[in-house]
């Protein structure tokens, strides 16, 4: 690995742009993602920038239980993100549907049926520290050595 590549990997792993998409949640997890931005948890000190534009994003945070309105749109959002990319499911809803997964509801969890999910953060809602930890672990595994693994 050349020195330039090494520098590139290091810099890339320390500048993550995040977009979040709410596919039908109760807003509890949105609030926790918001808390990551606040000074107490301060996601930007790790080089993570919440940009909310899929064309510039590296990590997509998926929040919510996948309502029918998102059937084609979520895949479209996912395709717009340039490689290397990773999706992180935040909260119970994208994993199992949580308390909304009952009879006579129209949700279609888990979200990993629809787009590839790199990490899942259980909790209703998960704590900001857990969200932060998930994004940081994804960062290390997906972005650290991407060009060597995908020549």
């Amino acid at each position, binding site marked *: 690995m050349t020195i330039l590549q090494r520098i590139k990997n290091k810099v890339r792993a320390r500048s993550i742009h995040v977009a979040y998409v709410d596919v039908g949640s109760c807003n509890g997890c949105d609030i926790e993602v918001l808390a990551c931005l606040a000074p107490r948890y*301060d996601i930007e000190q790790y080089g993570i920038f919440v940009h909310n534009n899929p064309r510039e994003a590296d990590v997509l945070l998926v929040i919510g239980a996948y309502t029918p309105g998102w059937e084609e749109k979520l895949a479209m959002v996912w395709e717009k993100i340039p490689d290397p990319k990773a999706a992180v499911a935040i909260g*119970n809803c994208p994993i199992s549907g949580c308390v909304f997964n*009952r*009879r006579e509801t129209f949700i279609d969890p888990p979200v990993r049926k629809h787009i590839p999910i790199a990490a899942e953060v259980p909790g209703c809602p998960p704590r900001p*520290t857990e969200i932060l930890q998930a994004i940081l672990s994804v960062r290390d595994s997906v972005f650290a050595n991407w060009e060597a693994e995908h020549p």
Partner: protein
Amino acid sequence: MGFSLIWYLKEFGRTAWIKKFLFAKTAPLTTPSYFRGFPEPTGRICQHALFCMMACPAPGAIEVVHVGKGWMPRIHKGHCIRCGLCVEACPHGVLKSGRILETMEREGTSLVFSFRVVIDPVLCTGCGNCCTSCPVNKVADAQMGAGGHSSNDEVIMKVQAGDVVVIHEEKCTGCKTCEGACPTNAIRIARILEGTQQTVHEGPP
């Protein structure tokens, strides 16, 4: 002084600044011990009372499964919402989460369960599947046949003149077998959870 290149290099080359610039500033935050996490076993023996499964508001979050020779509740992450109701509901203190057990002991609180059997008369076809599938009915009247008819009045519910009649609602244990057996989703078991608190004597008795 403030005009030479060396002064600038010294000023901006301070290790503390570079550290602040390159690395995270706040120490990694730790979760306090009194936060409710996913329930963990305390080490006491599970008596298979199943109150945790009845109290759980999230579908599929807790199951009591065979572990070795005994039973043990298993929490499914991704379903569990960390409400702590299973910890409160367990009569034997098998699970712990945060300081729920300490608070319950200090304030003398406990949970009381009751169940209500609700049958939608429009959807119900009177097939009697609920009466036949009910395990409490099986104990009360072993003779109950496929139609759900019974001459016994000790059963929870039975079919009378084409309609399901609920007789002993208080005997329901909340297993919801009838809900699964109903072909038209007409029967629902509503769980009623009551919190009780003993009188706390403050000061000398």
